């Protein structure tokens, strides 16, 4: 998605003397290698898989390598390309062209092609993206924003551990650890808890190392946490943990359905990780970067916080009104917030609007610096809406109504109608918030110093935000449909 940017970080970051052929060739080689591994794992034709992988790597090297300015950016771009590739070819165009495009047969075919999706993400997307990202970072000639290893590992590790602690405390009552799904039973509880924390630490620290340059605030951190958590669901429960437990690799849709609950768990863990990482990261930046008088901003911190909450509440109210017809029609409204199932629709509507305003405030708080145009606002709004679908009806609502979470595919299927309502809510809330914010800040931007800061805050062209939207929104909506 085009954005008004000043400096194209990705393009500026490329070394002048590096031959343009190196990246496609590197992509081709890694892709071919990944294809061979994928062919071997899926027991399909190795030659066809190598060719498939080589083409994938070549395409990424030719067209996306400029965006792979760090391992994290490379990973997100290549995962998005892998998902698009799977949607276009094994699940999409080939089926449409074969004449099965107007029936459930296409969905069945897509389910049968699910191992291909896991394979293309794990064997092609990850290695190609990370390798070209490492290459891109090594040849950026220092033109990228400064990277701090200490900040990445400490903030990420702390966030991962804290997220693991909060999440572990919450879900361990049922002796269910979503991060360990697929690993099977361990001998002792202490070993289970230790492994849970080890994986949480690994995810957290790698999150910081991979995405320090890309995340900017709480909202984008949650978005990245969401995307990374979905990726870890493919990596962990579907791949590494089964392998580590000595179980045969099973990337089928049936196995994915069995561990679907841990996908929701991973997503919630990713959101907690994202928010916690953002908190640690912002604290680090505040203590060690922004406290330096040389880096002082014109406008002090916290000045627009209260206004953001106010705009968020108003925007959430508008979003609540826009999404209420769907919630009314789907019968979700009377049970909203889990306060009283006997509420009349009108009472439910009032509570829905109140909850909408409160959630809108969280949008104002978390996403206030993410979007600079309506288009970008709507994109982040959709991500926000989807996040709340997983957090609200999938988790908090059943927790408040029954005291337990139901993360099964059946529960997800039953709640699919409200997903549309949440997406509408997110988009309307985000665009209303942006209008309210612009109405206030337009005159402030006449001050060239504030305008310069606002310009700095705009996410420049080339960051993996569009790829993240595609990957997170695509899989966030697709997986409940596909695996139900």
């Amino acid at each position, binding site marked *: 998605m085009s*954005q008004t*940017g000043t400096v194209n970080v990705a393009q500026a970051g490329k070394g002048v003397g590096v031959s343009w052929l190196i990246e496609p060739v590197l992509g081709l080689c890694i892709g071919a290698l990944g294809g061979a591994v994928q062919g071997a794992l899926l027991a399909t034709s190795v030659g066809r898989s190598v060719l498939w992988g080589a083409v994938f790597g070549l395409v990424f090297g030719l067209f996306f390598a400029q965006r792979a300015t760090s391992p994290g950016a490379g990973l997100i771009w290549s995962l998005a390309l892998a998902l*698009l590739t799977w949607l276009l070819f094994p699940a999409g*165009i080939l089926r*449409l062209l074969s004449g099965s495009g107007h029936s*459930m047969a296409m969905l069945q075919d897509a389910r049968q092609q699910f191992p291909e999706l896991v394979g293309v993400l794990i064997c092609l997307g990850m290695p190609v993206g990370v390798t070209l990202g490492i290459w891109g970072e090594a040849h950026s000639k220092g033109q990228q924003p400064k990277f701090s290893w200490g900040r990445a590992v400490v903030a990420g590790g702390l966030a991962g551990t804290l997220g693991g602690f909060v999440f572990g405390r919450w879900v361990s009552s049922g002796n269910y650890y979503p991060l360990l799904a697929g690993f099977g039973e361990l001998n002792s509880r202490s070993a289970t808890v230790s492994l849970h924390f080890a994986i949480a630490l690994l995810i957290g620290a790698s999150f910081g190392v991979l995405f320090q340059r890309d995340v900017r605030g709480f909202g984008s951190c949650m978005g990245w946490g969401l995307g990374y958590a979905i990726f870890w669901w493919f990596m962990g429960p579907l791949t590494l943990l089964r392998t580590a437990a000595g179980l045969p690799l099973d990337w089928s849709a049936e196995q994915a359905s069995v561990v679907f609950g841990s996908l929701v768990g991973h997503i919630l863990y990713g959101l907690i990780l994202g928010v916690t990482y953002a908190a640690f990261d912002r604290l680090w930046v505040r203590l060690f970067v922004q406290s330096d008088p040389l880096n002082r901003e014109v406008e002090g911190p916290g*000045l627009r916080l209260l206004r953001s909450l106010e705009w968020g509440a108003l925007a959430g109210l508008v979003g609540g009104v826009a999404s209420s017809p769907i919630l009314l029609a789907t019968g979700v409204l009377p049970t909203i917030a889990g306060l009283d199932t006997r509420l009349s629709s009108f009472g439910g509507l009032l509570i829905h609007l109140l909850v909408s305003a409160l959630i809108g405030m969280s949008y104002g708080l978390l996403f206030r610096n993410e979007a600079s145009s309506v288009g970008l606002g709507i994109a982040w709004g959709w991500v926000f809406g989807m996040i709340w679908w997983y957090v609200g009806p999938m988790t908090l609502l059943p927790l408040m109504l029954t005291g337990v979470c139901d993360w099964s595919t059946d529960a997800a299927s039953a709640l699919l109608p409200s997903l549309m309502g949440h997406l509408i809510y997110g988009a309307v809330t985000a665009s209303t918030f942006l209008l309210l914010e612009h109405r206030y800040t*337009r005159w402030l931007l006449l001050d060239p110093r504030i305008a310069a800061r606002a310009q700095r805050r705009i996410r420049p062209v*080339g960051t993996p935000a569009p790829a993240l*939207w595609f990957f997170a929104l695509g899989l966030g909506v697709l997986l409940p449909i596909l695996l139900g």
Partner: protein
Amino acid sequence: MNRFARRSLIGAAAGLLASAALVFTLGNPLLGAALGIAFGAAFSASLPPTRGTYVDNLMGAGALGVPLWGLVSVIALPLLSGQMPQWGAEQMRQHFPSLVGWVIYGASLGLFTQALSDIAGHFFGPEAAPRLPPAREKTRVVILGGGFAGMTTADCLEQQLRTNAQVSVTLVSETNALLFTPMLAEVAGSSLEPSHISTPLRSSLHQTEFIRGRVAEIQLDKRRVILEADPRNNGSTAQREIPYDHLVFALGAVSNYLGMANVEKLAFNFKSLLDAIRIRNHVIEMFERAERESEPALRRPLLTFVVAGGGFAGVEVAGALNDFTRGILADYPKLRPEELSVILVHSRDRILPELSESLARYAQKRMEERGVVFRLNARLADARPGVVVVSDGDIPAETLVWTAGTAPNPLLKTLAVEKDKRGALIVDSTLSLPGHPGLWALGDCAAVIDSKTEKPCPPTAQFALREAKTLAQNILAQLERRPVRAFHFDSLGALCVVGHQTACAELTVPFARQRSMRFSGLLAWLMWRGIYLAKLPGLERKIRVLMDWTIELFFPRDIVQTIDLK
């Protein structure tokens, strides 16, 4: 061509090309093409083009396809065909082919939009820049004075003018910060750090040009303000002449010593931050000297602090000095409490004429209990080194703080405009100077008459803030040729701190302006702190003051001398 029209055309063409995926999956070619064109135009119009961002558009628009599938295929199309939305899980699964179709549509829309945009840029050049309004000569509003009145006027003008670039606002002030005078006594009493009650004007104002300088002359005929030259730099090229179309007088007041030259020479003024800092350091200096002095008769004037004036300022500074001096006695073991005296001299029979009599008596009683001595119905007549001459007897004292009288800024004397007997500018009910279009005045330097009550408005910050809002609205109204409005404001009440955790408050009852509610003691003190903390401009300043107050609860007041008064 208009940039939005151009983008929409590009988007519509790209949408038509990309709609092949919709045509194929929706099963209705006309509908697929129409939807493709409509969403393509909207997508392209909402985003400013950037060259060569193919992969960004590919992914961004691809992501757009997912929600569009839900909104159109699952909800809108069934509704338009008279059915219920097909958002049941199984129904949505049946729409899987169209989900793939929408994603392919989105991804190809992104690519086509970028390609067509680049082609259009190559052949027709970049988008037309947004049209700027024709340049006109700006209307210049100049505000003299950076106190409550001036600062609030500038702030209100900024808020109301918003993006109107045809009006420039300039604020001229002798200091670069707004002093929050209600807390000034606490600085003199070493409760608050001096800079914590001052807000930098430059940080607070975004669109206003700020000039720190002293006004030397105002040429009403030539409509310009002349600033004093900087004597330290003869070759200075600093701006000295400021032309104006509207001139706002918000110069405030200065101390009026009623012609007593010795008092003016020897007394401490109590108007500025520097005055408060000097008083605090002087008090510490007196204690240091008294500690070394062995002769009681010589110690006495060193430890006697006289405050002239029993209004708000006098009472608050007397209360603050009393608390400060009695508190720091612990650091001076040779000094005894009975040697110390804080004396308030007032010409009337009761202090605090702004409050009702019962509250004034309460304040006096509480202050006397805490050690303050009152000399009522006594006039300050003169001062000599070491002696304050009062009508009912001399007071041996090395310290005299003057709060007994104010007068409008002396600069106003040079202006050929109508003034009252105090020397304040006479304004009409709209706060403009009669017979002088473009001249406005407010605050302590203006004689403002309330349009409803027809009574003079008191020279307080509470009124100055409201006058500033009305004045800013009236300037804007004149610029836009709208009717101006008359000033009216009902006082909200008054609060005064008289000592440690003790205050008096008289608040007007809402909707019953003739009646008031009276509070005293701890509750009034908490109200004082809460209200003035809320009024203190800037979150940062609020936090700093709150921290100072918290620290004061646990630690003694600081006696470090920060300036040398010898």
